[in-house]
């Protein structure tokens, strides 16, 4: 059973003079434990697709079923809760709450879930250690490098024990060393703890690490390879 099932997904923007078919009929499914990259030229629809999978944006047509739930049927408040419990997010930048420390940022999402303090603290420590930041628990985002911030974001995304993690160009703002480091961490988490990662990227080195590469152009899947 796949954890994500996408059927005939379309997103059309009509705000401009011309209609833009950002996503133009996509059928895809993802299994638990995948490490999948979505690639394609700029403007091909990667962000739009990921936003719809993450329940941040609603499709013009088609449906997305996550774990037997058609997320199109959820109301505004339900979809937020659905994200909280099922999906981890890593954005390109501005991932963290600037006034909270690394530790508090990771704890925050578990706090939203109402998890107990003891569990929160233990899990936060474990996660930050596993992304190599066990010694930076009390640093604020502004005191961390871009790469370190992204690693905190990965730890935060995992803290809620989601079904999968969505990452839209998580390495776009990082230098090559930090990129490699982040990818290694994600790969390790995927391999050791069976965490499902779906990420978009422009970066050939990132693509190399992926075990499945989905290429889209003009809002359509043009190739879907499993290595």
């Amino acid at each position, binding site marked *: 059973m796949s954890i994500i099932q996408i059927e005939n997904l379309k997103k059309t923007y009509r705000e401009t003079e011309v209609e833009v078919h950002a996503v133009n009929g996509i059928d895809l499914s993802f299994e638990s434990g995948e490490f999948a990259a979505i690639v394609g030229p700029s403007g091909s629809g990667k962000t739009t697709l990921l*936003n719809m999978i*993450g329940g*941040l*944006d609603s499709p013009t047509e088609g449906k997305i079923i996550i774990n037997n739930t058609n997320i199109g049927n959820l109301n505004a*408040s339900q979809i*937020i*809760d659905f*994200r*909280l*419990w099922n999906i*981890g*997010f890593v*954005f390109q930048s*501005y*991932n963290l*709450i*600037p*006034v*909270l420390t690394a530790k*508090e940022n990771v*704890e*925050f*999402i578990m*706090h*939203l*879930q109402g998890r107990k303090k003891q569990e929160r603290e233990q899990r936060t420590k474990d996660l930050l250690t596993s992304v190599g930041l066990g010694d930076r628990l009390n640093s604020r985002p502004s005191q961390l490098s871009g790469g370190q911030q992204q690693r905190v974001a990965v730890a*935060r*995304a995992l803290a*809620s024990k989601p079904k999968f993690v969505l990452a839209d160009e998580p390495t776009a703002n990082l230098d090559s060393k930090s990129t490699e480091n982040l990818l290694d961490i994600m790969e390790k988490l995927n391999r050791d703890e069976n965490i499902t990662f779906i990420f978009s990227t422009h970066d050939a080195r990132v693509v190399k690490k992926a075990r499945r590469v989905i290429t889209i152009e003009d809002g359509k899947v043009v190739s879907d390879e499993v290595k």
Partner: protein
Amino acid sequence: MNLRIAWRNIWRNKKRSLITISSVILAVVLATFTRSFQEGSYELMIENAIGKFSGYVQVHQKDYWEDKTLDNGIDVSDSLLHQIVSIPNIEGVNIRIESFSLASNRNNTKGTLVMGIEPEKEDSLIDLSKKIIKGKYFGNLDQGILIGSKLAQYLELDVGDSLVLMGQGHWGNTAVGVFPVKGIVKMPAPNIDRQIVFMPLKTAQEYFSYPNGATSLVIKFKDADLTQEICNMLNSSLDTTQYKAMSWQKMSPEMLQQIQSDRISGVMMLNILYMIIAFGIFGTVLMMTEERKREFAMMIAIGMQKTKLIIITLYEALIMNALGIIIGIALSIPLVVYYHYYPIEMSGEMAKSIEKFGMEPVLPTIISFKIVINQALTVLIITIVAAAYPLWSILKLNVIRALRR
């Protein structure tokens, strides 16, 4: 956690938060201060003109107020006095007999208000002996009189001189008498100072040929707030075909009106101040939300309900205001208390015009917990109202658009 985030967010932009807090402090201090001075001056005005002169409640013969003559007087009996004093909270009754007479000394003649009073009892109410600037206070059986300082000046009278009084007595009798001036009193209200002649009650009753007569019974009680209640109790217990109790608000409607219209203009001024504060807070909260839309969008994306986000932002506004209000109150109280005991003394033209209204030229504050709390609550409500739009904009936040920025 929410409070922690709110607290830290406030100190994220220290300068702006401090300006906001300061504006709240300023609003609370200014509002409390001006209102305290306003109410303080009313209280003083009422106390001078009413409490320390006519009393808050008087009992008259029922037609006296419409037609103030001795013929509409009261024959004072012990049973009447007893009936009044037996009402709870009433501490005593001062008997007065007053009427107009002509006063003359050599070539000068002037209309005066002759007021027969019980010397000892009245002294505790109107502090008359303290107002003596020359001569001595009188006793119950004295033949001597006390006259206002302006009247003395006009008639060129000094202590020891005699004053000729002529007027109408009870039931058509002519009232005539020559009275030695025993003392000169300076009354705070100039219109009274210009025409008052105080006489011991017995002497006055004799002068007016009205033994046991009175025109008004001044009801004494401690708490001015009981005025209406006491007035009502008197009217229900006394025979209203003969007597009528009146509150100072009924006896001096001009003063009540003056106070009320002054209060309205004062409150209007404050409203302008409040509007300015409201815009300040509105601006701050709006900026706080606008510049953090990306952050808010991220928080909503990872699973935070918008309502929770609103609560955090509301906390921020409320904490800043609570700080401002608490500091504002802390600063106001000593100021208000200080100026209550050391009122601002006015001088020059200002003082003169105030004296014309029968008031002392000082500006004290009133120490009123109610004023402080009212101003603090008003500022609090303003905050919530001013924050409403920015908070509502969170509810309408488009996550995708904010994330793309």
